């Protein structure tokens, strides 16, 4: 398709189709429609679901999922996976709990230390991936299993049980509670502050992805890493930073849950790693990288939250939750496949 003056009328016709195409190509479109359908469905089935307290109830699981899903979406757009994201929620919570209760640290010192630990794990994940060139799926599967073992082993070694408790008796707890686990009352309903953290994570993540150089690099290394490197994108640094972002997000959720529940189970977070990936994929992220949306991933987490609570409110067996999620995932992947073909087709 050459673009010369004589073909201008044809060009204009293509431009109109282009506008529709652009709307279809919005990666979050599918998850937005999905979220609306799920909301309407459960709101019609259950009064509680659409009441203030009901909304607060399904926003809460959505928020803790969403914070990590946002980071996982960024990483997936950058072309990598992190299977250790879920178990790292447990690792950071357990670290914070053990340091503050069994070793008597100030809670804040424990929280900062577990952040540093999380960042170190994220760095190790990223460094191994960029140095070896092995699929991140395998590398982080290794990290996942190692952390799973450590979470149980170290917790048993230190506490002789499989949980860490009594975090509320540590010094600095009240301040930590205000920041990580308080509630905000809006129109007579109290909402978990985690929801604010989630909104903040989504806003920052989306801004970074769409409005900064780092975001452009993230898209580029996920789309074609050698090509990106050839034009001077610091691909390795970008990948490592993305892994560290996921770790930091897992730490935030680990901290929120440790402070809110005041105890952490040694098996916390196991299984969540796939849930994050599913949320990101429902939100429009391609498994192959280079395409996706932070807002979409947040909407994916919202669908999760609404479904998990909605099924309970509707009085159904909770087993249906898994079936429903599987169906959503399949639909999302099929839609993504279609979009990708549409976007990549060339007109020679």
């Amino acid at each position, binding site marked *: 398709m050459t673009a010369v003056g004589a073909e201008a009328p044809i060009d204009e016709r293509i431009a109109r189709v*282009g506008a529709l195409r*652009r709307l279809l190509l919005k990666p979050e479109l599918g998850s937005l429609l999905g979220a609306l359908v799920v909301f309407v469905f459960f709101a019609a089935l259950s009064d509680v679901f659409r009441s203030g307290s009901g909304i607060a109830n399904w926003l809460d699981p959505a928020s803790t999922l969403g914070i990590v899903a946002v980071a996982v979406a960024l990483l997936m757009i950058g072309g990598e996976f992190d299977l250790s994201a879920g178990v790292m929620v447990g690792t950071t919570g357990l670290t914070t709990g053990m340091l503050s209760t069994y070793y008597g640290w100030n809670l804040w010192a424990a929280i900062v230390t577990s952040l540093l630990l999380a960042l170190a794990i994220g760095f190790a994940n990223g460094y191994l991936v960029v140095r070896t060139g092995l699929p991140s799926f395998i590398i982080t599967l290794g990290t996942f299993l190692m952390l799973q073992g450590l979470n149980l082993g170290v917790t048993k070694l230190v506490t002789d049980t499989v949980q860490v408790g009594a975090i509320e008796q540590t010094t600095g707890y009240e301040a930590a509670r205000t920041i990580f686990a308080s509630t905000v009352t809006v129109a007579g309903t109290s909402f978990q502050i985690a929801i604010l953290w989630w909104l903040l994570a989504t806003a920052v993540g989306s801004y970074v992805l769409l409005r900064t*150089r780092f975001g452009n690099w993230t898209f580029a290394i996920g789309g074609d890493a050698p090509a*990106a*490197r*050839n034009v001077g994108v610091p691909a390795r640094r970008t990948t490592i930073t993305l892994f560290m972002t996921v770790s930091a997000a897992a730490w935030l959720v680990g901290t929120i849950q440790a402070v809110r529940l005041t105890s952490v189970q040694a098996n916390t977070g196991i299984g969540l790693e796939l849930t994050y990936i599913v949320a990101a994929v429902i939100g429009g992220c391609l498994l192959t990288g280079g395409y996706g949306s932070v807002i979409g991933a947040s909407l994916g987490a919202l669908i999760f939250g609404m479904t998990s609570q909605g099924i309970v409110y509707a009085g159904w067996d909770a087993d249906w939750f898994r079936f429903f999620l599987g169906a959503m995932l399949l639909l999302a992947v099929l839609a993504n496949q279609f979009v990708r073909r549409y976007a990549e087709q*060339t*007109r020679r």
Partner: protein
Amino acid sequence: MTTPVPAAGPPLLEVRGIGKYFGSVIALKDVSTVVRAGEVTCVLGDNGAGKSTFIKLLSGVFQPDEGELVLNGEPVTFGTPRQSLDAGIATVFQDLAMIPLLAIWRNFFLGSEPTKGRGPFRRFDSDTAKRITRRELAAMGIDIRDPDQPVGTLSGGERQSVAIARAVHFGAKLLILDEPTSALGVKQAGVVLRYIVQARDRGLGVVFITHNPHHAYPVGDRFLLLKRGRSLGDFGKDEISLDELTRLMAGGAELEALGHELAREGGPAADVARALAADRDGATDPTDPTDPTDRSVGAPPAGARAAGPAPGGPADRR
């Protein structure tokens, strides 16, 4: 046909006896040529000739094991693609270094994004990026419908043009094009050749990598021929004709030997041999073989014929 009189002073880039080894494999050995501003140096060779290694040495992806690069009279070494870019050498790679799913304007500025604001609010200046993308592409004669289009929806020729426009915009003094016409149809290839001429006329030095002498000859001022990692010669345009270039490129001697072998056997094989010969050098009479020696450096050109080699000959294909 004469080589344009070179400008005073040292050439833009001089390659002196450059070589590269991968373990025991000699990827490139003792290759020399020059690139001048406002000229096109074509690097020709078949698959495996060392063309890709050659450009990767110029663009800083690899470092030479021997020989040197002299930029504006001064020896230089490039440790990374970034250093080569900063020295004004822009490479348009065969895979285009473009991300298919990414919008044109994001691709255009990839790795060199303009920013505004400061501190944590330093952000990608998308308005400027879109405006400049549109303007630069228009200057190359490409009217993009929408800078938000993913690059993957552009045609091959359009993508090449975007890549060339990008290199020109980022102040390249030397443009390296890695087989820009190889994947294109006849018409699209013509469009890209026009951009090469346009870049040359803007005073850029151009290194044009190709395996197609019919694309190289009309735009080239110098021709470096590579074969199995060695130089077959470095010719000015007045030193070589299109036919000679084609013959050297198509592995003329090997094809000829094969032709004779088949012809001796007679029957259908002889027909194949005749077809082979005709295919090789178009109007050449198969019973009148030209100089069969492989080393033809400095040999007289095979003579310019009115009818050029048949299009669709082996040299036209991959």
